[in-house]
């Protein structure tokens, strides 16, 4: 099976070379048979990668310890669930996993648009296969997961070695979320290849109009959604496993995932200007290019060892390959842009500074500044060492200082942007849309201050959260009220109808509301508390309004690990509310420990308890308790962002009456008399 996987990947590489070369020849010669052949070769590449990936999965699941990669990341006692996840636990396997996910996207695109858009698709195919070829080069020649353990026999021949057992999986990765988080995050990273390929293809082929934007809208949203969920799942994993009481550390690997998400968000917004007004063509093309380049750059950061990170892959010789690829892609983008820049000229004008167009420009500016702040903070230690020869650390205090004001300004624009009209917004409309929410936000701020809220950022977050929430609710309310009045239905039904008539717009509002909840959750960090104490059985600890009593202590031996567990009774106001079981695990295969945090989570706060192990000095069990306010709002907000994204992906539902009119002409007259309820049109209409 090891040879099978190797051959499959090698064949995929050769097929990819043909698809790439044949695709270019097809573009030049315009021969339909060659176009079809290149497309089929591209699809064959995908199938071969799936076979290669399947064979690696088989090697893991069957404990084939003749393979170096399997030995390094698995062992016999590892549950099958984690054996599968171990595929992407190391450099080589995760690169194959990247290829695997990319191939799913590529196959879907080539299959979905087969025979369609003949002017565009040959270019798209060449770009997609080109990217896939880069990863196949790594999979085959630089970081192959199919290396066999071997040594030289006395005769000089190569002797295979079969190890009895493997080293096991890193304990930090033995958590159910780690089975889900990397695939979802990688689906985001790889998904951005699709809009990139279409943008570059449209530029190279001078494909007319905004069609490529329409074609890639859903692909971009899917990639963006995956990236966002992946980031949140990563944060949740860090929160639930690392045992340090937080969820975001501004680690280079976390930052690497945030950067393309920020530019992707900017693209999702500015693309509307191109669709609606034919504006910002150059900008959008470069936003897509930048987003794609940042996904590769993020991977370079994670894998090259250029920056220190807790969960980066080991330093390897892979860095220069990524840098070379980034340089090549940048060169192709620049040359393509320079040669075809006249095609991107936009001819629209701006009627007023107070308009949706301006708000999108500012939105893009702030998102890009946030991205620049993250990049500069991440790379500054490297720059400092290079320029001054002095190593410095750029940690949480720096990133918080820089990014908090940027984030709050972005939150403000989240409320303002959607309610400004395309072209021009009147003063009366501004007053109508923003007066009430702004006033209520300020009232909330004043009440907050009166109740003792002293932190400026938290107060600002409170004001803006109320403001943005109310603007969103008002948008739903006004639209639904019109539909409810015309359709004689209740407001809730009106909201549902309104949403389904323009899913993209109202799905976007739902996403914005989710972002508000995430901001509220983050603001809770200002009030975090923690306490660490030695707690032998019978000892008590008070944190906030909770009293923890250490009732008992037990240990268990399981095939994969041994576990020590504390049993803590949690009381509040003299009433027991929950039992918590924080756990410390020891994995003998790799001689490492892991924590299993116990969390009592409410909307108000999380009681987060870590059993830290035995004190090295006194050998007494140590409990570290954290009281983290509002953390649940972050996960709730994340769920709402997902819901909004899914909603935005649903096609619009046309008003029923209009459909009937078209389908049944004989009944058209009576149906037309009560005019179909129009989609309410406000200044802020999409």
């Amino acid at each position: 099976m090891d040879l099978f996987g190797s051959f499959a990947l090698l064949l995929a590489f050769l097929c990819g070379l043909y698809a790439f070369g044949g695709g270019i020849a097809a573009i030049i010669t315009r021969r339909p048979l060659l176009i079809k052949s290149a497309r089929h070769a591209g699809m064959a590449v995908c199938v071969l990668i799936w076979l290669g990936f399947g064979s690696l999965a088989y090697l893991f699941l069957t404990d084939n310890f003749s393979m170096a990669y399997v030995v390094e990341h698995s062992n016999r006692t590892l549950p099958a669930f984690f054996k599968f996840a171990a595929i992407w636990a190391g450099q080589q396997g995760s690169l194959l996993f990247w290829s695997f996910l990319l191939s799913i996207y590529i196959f879907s695109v080539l299959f979905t648009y087969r025979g369609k858009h003949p002017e565009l698709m040959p270019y798209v195919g060449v770009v997609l296969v080109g990217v896939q070829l880069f990863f196949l080069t790594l999979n085959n020649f630089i970081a192959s997961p199919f290396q066999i353990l071997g040594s030289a026999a006395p005769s000089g021949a190569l002797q295979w070695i079969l190890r009895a057992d493997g080293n096991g999986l890193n304990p930090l990765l033995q958590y159910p979320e780690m089975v889900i988080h990397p695939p979802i995050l990688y689906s985001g990273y790889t998904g951005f290849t699709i809009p990139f390929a279409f943008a570059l293809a449209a530029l190279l082929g001078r494909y007319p109009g905004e069609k490529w934007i329409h074609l890639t809208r859903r692909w971009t949203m899917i990639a963006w959604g995956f990236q966002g969920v992946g980031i949140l799942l990563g944060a949740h994993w860090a929160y639930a496993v690392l045992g340090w009481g937080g969820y975001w550390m501004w680690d280079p690997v976390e930052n690497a995932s945030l950067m393309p998400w920020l530019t992707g968000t900017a693209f999702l917004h500015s693309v509307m200007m191109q669709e609606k007004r034919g504006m910002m063509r150059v900008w959008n093309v470069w936003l897509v290019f930048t987003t794609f380049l940042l996904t590769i750059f993020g991977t370079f950061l994670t894998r090259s060892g250029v920056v220190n990170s807790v969960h980066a892959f080991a330093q390897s010789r892979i860095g220069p390959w990524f840098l070379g690829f980034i340089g090549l892609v940048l060169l192709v983008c620049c040359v393509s842009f320079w040669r075809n820049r006249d095609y991107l000229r936009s001819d629209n004008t701006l009627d007023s500074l107070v308009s949706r167009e301006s708000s999108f420009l500012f939105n893009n500016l702030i998102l890009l500044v946030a991205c620049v702040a993250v990049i500069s903070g991440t790379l500054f230690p490297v720059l400092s060492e290079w320029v001054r020869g002095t190593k410095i650390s750029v940690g949480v205090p720096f990133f918080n200082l820089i990014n908090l004001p940027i984030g709050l300004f972005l939150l403000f624009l989240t409320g303002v942007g959607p309610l400004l009209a395309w072209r021009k917004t009147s003063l009366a409309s501004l007053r109508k849309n923003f007066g009430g929410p702004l006033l209520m936000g300020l009232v909330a701020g004043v009440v907050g201050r009166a109740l003792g809220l002293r932190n400026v950022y938290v107060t600002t977050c409170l004001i803006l959260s109320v403001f943005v929430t109310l603007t969103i609710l008002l948008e739903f309310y006004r639209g639904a009220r019109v539909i409810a009045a015309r359709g004689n239905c209740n407001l809730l039904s009106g909201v549902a109808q309104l949403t389904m008539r323009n899913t993209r717009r109202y799905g976007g509002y739902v996403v914005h509301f989710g972002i508000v909840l995430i901001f509220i959750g983050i603001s809770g960090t200002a009030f975090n508390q923690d306490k660490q104490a030695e707690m032998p059985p019978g000892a008590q600890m008070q944190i906030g309004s909770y009293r923890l009593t250490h009732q008992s202590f037990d240990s268990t031996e399981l095939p994969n690990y041994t576990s020590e567990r504390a049993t803590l009774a949690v009381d509040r106001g003299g009433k027991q509310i929950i039992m918590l079981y924080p756990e410390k695990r020891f994995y003998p295969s790799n001689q490492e420990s892991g924590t299993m945090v116990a969390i009592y989570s409410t909307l108000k706060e999380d009681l987060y308890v870590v059993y830290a192990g035995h004190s090295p000095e006194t050998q007494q069990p140590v409990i570290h308790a954290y009281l983290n306010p509002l953390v649940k709002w972050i996960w709730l907000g994340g769920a709402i962002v997902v819901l909004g994204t899914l909603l935005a992906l649903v096609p619009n539902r046309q008003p029923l009456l209009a459909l009937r009119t078209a389908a049944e002409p004989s009944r058209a007259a009576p149906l037309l008399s009560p005019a179909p309820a129009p989609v309410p049109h406000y200044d802020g209409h999409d």
Partner: protein
Amino acid sequence: MISPGLPISRKGLHVAPRPSERHKPSGVSGIGNRRVCFCFLALAAACAAAPLLAQAPVQTTDRARVLGKQLMCTCGCGDTAGSCSHPGAAFSGPCEVAKAKLKEVEERMSRGESDSAILQAFVQEYGESALAAPPARGFNWFAYTFPALAFAFGLALVLMILRQWRQRIVVAPASGPGVSAAMLEHARRQIERDVPED
């Protein structure tokens, strides 16, 4: 070790039983509207109240740990000395490195040194990498000002673009091939209607 009578949530924790949600039948439009309005208001109020709920009295953490959060732990955890949890180790923090740093901080505090003097002493002893955020001086100013410079540059660019777009609207009708602004507007609206959203 599972106590009977309490449901088990994920990660094997007991959670207190919650009252089941009452099913609300959909009412006639007027009552429904009031309910929806009430829900909207409740939602906005919840958003407003959340940060206030969070405001529990802040624990008086000892000064050494607070200051320790401005010093990097060098055990490889990537965290600060004041919050090192040393993932993967037998004891989940603070590790020996962090403990040593916190001990040194405490000793210096007991000698009456100010926070800034202590941080400075660490910089002299271990270099600037001892601090969790680079001191805002010299070349490090670049790290702090770069986002602001990027913002200023971007803002200038945005304003320039806006100005160009504004100027075009004055020039365009005069040089247009006999097409009135109203016709252009009509055509634009038509295109906006015709261009599908999906």
